[in-house]
């Protein structure tokens, strides 16, 4: 009993004096773990802002992890860690060895007694970093001031698609105008909304006819691609046309697709039999059979002033061009 009291007394003295040599019970228990009675011993520690803040003192149990000590220290220093309540904060904990500060301690789950047994001193420092939040993500601004573009990039938002905003503002921050950021500041990154019915993923001029057919189908056009004798055609059905003057309200057209599409553009079209203007079809050339059906070739062309442009035109725009024939407008 006396021995334990004596031991306890020794430990208490050690616990209160920061630079007192490590008791042998702790130094010697590196492998086996801290004795149960010592686990709850509260020791005095120094904590300061890195690199040269004034040191304040806290008490922590030997069994506390360095993360817990970091939290106690931050509280004593009056500035919470960021992100709040994160198991691994963006801020760093460092330990003083002699007159030098260690690199940031990577494993904050380490209990204090282990850290001490491994040679750490009882002087710690918290490196508060320029942590900011964008949407739900926390990160560290690489420098300050910083442009919104750089900040978005640092958070892996594509600045070509996203704009940065202050939390309650509807005005985007100019992408290349540096802004002063504060630790803990919150921003919101909003993406542009891109929609389009013939704006397929491939840039115009590089798309395939299959992609174009899918796009017009998605837009509600009845269209199918088929091949006959090595030649590809797109058949467009249920195309609404004005009646009168046409004998029916809908028709089918057939568009021949050159093998060089889209560089080699679309031109003219075939009209399925069954509609006419008073029994005749203007501009109709020879009748042919394609896909088991009779079609009349309609001479309806792009003008020299406005030729097919592969970087702008596609199947959808050609269908619109063909509709111009029925509406008596457009180029021919």
């Amino acid at each position: 009993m006396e021995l334990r009291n004596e031991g306890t007394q020794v430990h208490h003295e050690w616990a209160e004096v920061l630079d007192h040599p490590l008791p042998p019970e702790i130094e010697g228990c590196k492998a086996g773990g801290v004795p149960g009675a010592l686990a709850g011993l509260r020791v005095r520690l120094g904590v300061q802002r890195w690199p040269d803040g004034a040191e304040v003192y806290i008490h922590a149990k030997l069994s506390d992890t360095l993360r817990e000590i970091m939290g106690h220290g931050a509280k004593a220093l009056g500035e919470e860690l960021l992100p709040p309540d994160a198991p691994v904060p963006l801020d760093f904990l460092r330990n003083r060895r002699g007159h030098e500060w260690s690199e940031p301690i990577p494993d904050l789950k380490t209990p204090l007694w282990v850290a001490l047994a491994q040679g750490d001193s009882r002087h710690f420092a918290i490196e508060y970093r320029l942590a900011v939040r964008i949407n739900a993500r926390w990160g560290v601004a690489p420098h300050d001031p910083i442009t919104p573009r750089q900040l978005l990039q640092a958070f892996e938002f594509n600045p070509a698609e996203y704009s940065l905003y202050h939390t309650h503002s509807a005005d985007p921050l100019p992408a290349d105008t540096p802004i002063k950021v504060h630790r803990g500041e919150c921003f919101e990154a909003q993406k542009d909304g891109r929609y389009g019915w013939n704006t397929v993923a491939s840039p115009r001029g590089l798309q395939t006819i299959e992609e174009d057919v899918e796009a017009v189908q998605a837009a509600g056009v009845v269209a199918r691609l088929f091949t006959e004798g090595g030649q590809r055609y797109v058949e467009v059905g249920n195309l609404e046309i004005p009646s009168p003057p046409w004998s029916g309200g809908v028709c089918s057209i057939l568009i021949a697709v050159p093998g060089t599409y889209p560089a080699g553009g679309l031109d003219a079209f075939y009209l399925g039999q069954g509609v006419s203007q008073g029994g005749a079809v203007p501009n109709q050339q020879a009748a042919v059979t394609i896909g088991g059906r009779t079609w009349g070739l309609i001479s309806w062309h792009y003008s020299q002033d406005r030729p097919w442009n592969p970087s702008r035109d596609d199947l959808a725009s050609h269908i619109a061009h063909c509709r111009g024939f029925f509406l008596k407008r457009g180029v021919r």
Partner: protein
Amino acid sequence: MNIRISEKHWREVEHLTSLSFVGGLEFAPETGCILLVAENDHAFRPCLLVAEVLEPETGELLEQGSGGITFASRFLRRGLLRVRERGLKGFLTVHTHPSADKRVSFSLFDDSNDPELMANFYELEPAGLFGSVVLGRDAICARLWRNGAPVYLEQLVCVGEQVSFRELSGKAPKELPKPQAIFDRSAAITGAGASYRMSQLRIALVGTSGTGSLMLELLARAGAGEVVVFEFDSADETNLNRVLHLRQCDADTKARKADCLRDAILESGLPTNVTVVAGGDIRDVAVADELRGCDLLVGCVDRDWPRLILCEVAQQYLIPYLDLGTEIGAVADAIQSLDARVSYIGPDRPCLKCAKIISEEQIRLEGYGEAERARVVGMGYSKDLPLRAPSVMDLNMRTASIAMLWIRHLLQPFLKTPLPHALKESVTNFATKEMYYTRNPECRVCGEPLRAGSGGRFQLTTRQKKENFVSDRDQPGAAEGQAMEITL
């Protein structure tokens, strides 16, 4: 899940996207807007409610062409801030496919861009609801994004001069089934489509006494799909002069009126389902909560408080509400007036307060417990609530008949439009009058722009939920101080 929208807002959408569908334009541009939505999270009839249509400002639609459009982040940002400001649930982007007529669907490009855009919205507002709508000339497709995947919506229900339904599948409207043979003789005014819609309607009927019991009969004979009955009263002998199907034995046993009527409809063999809501008093918050699961509200009550609640539900959940009323004006033994009235309340229409059919004073009086009410009346500044207002079936029939015709009209129009705010028949004068009222811009029910389409954002004026609360109508002379609290 459906979307409900007021006719005014739908017209705004049509206006904002009209350029895409102008005839004669070879390359009509895509257009767009944003629908700010609230959620009606009713257990089995959930829907989105369009609370506001956000118009793009200059420079907020980029790269606007016939094949594509970009909503600038600022436009979406304004939508998000407005959602937060109004306490709404989220929004739907709306864009057009100008070449799509009777069929429209999201393009590959839309499909490839929406997931990241929606993920961005959910990162900013994790509890929100976000989605997109694409419009063709005569077709609409709409989807919500949930857990990173699209959930396609079913119908757009537009409430206004009519109640119209548009499929959100992106396909042309399907041919609706023909009415059952038993409704053959009514097909002239409720044709195939309207008859089918009638059979799909879930109609709240609040009050089943003099006018309510007649309304239930008329709704069943018109082929209504389901009538949800809200009634807490029991039969007594004085009801026998005017409550349809009530028998002496029901009065003797104090049978619940709602149960008697349900059984009568069941015995008739008509296809209408009748659901009786437990408790039945819409002044109770849990009972009132069932109203938002209905497509149409029919009020047959003689008190202002439930009428106020029905007006609030109509505004907040964009549900059309028909209020029925009759009044026999008599001095001593001389009849001065016999009036039958039907009012149509809904989004962008004046409420019953603005129509002066219900009054602040009456609402306040009804909100008191009996003892407190007696004290207030005793002060001499307020009239007491009439307990035994005169009522006869022949007059009730006139208002029920008008209301049923209006319901048919909402599904398939045949009356002169725009509909008046109310129609009042003065039987003694052989006169029928269209009534129009002015909305008070300061009215907290219909003048409050933030209330319309806001779903559960605002609390209804129901009683605060209380443990073992006993209605003073159920137990006359209940303990003093047991006031019914109004949650204004």
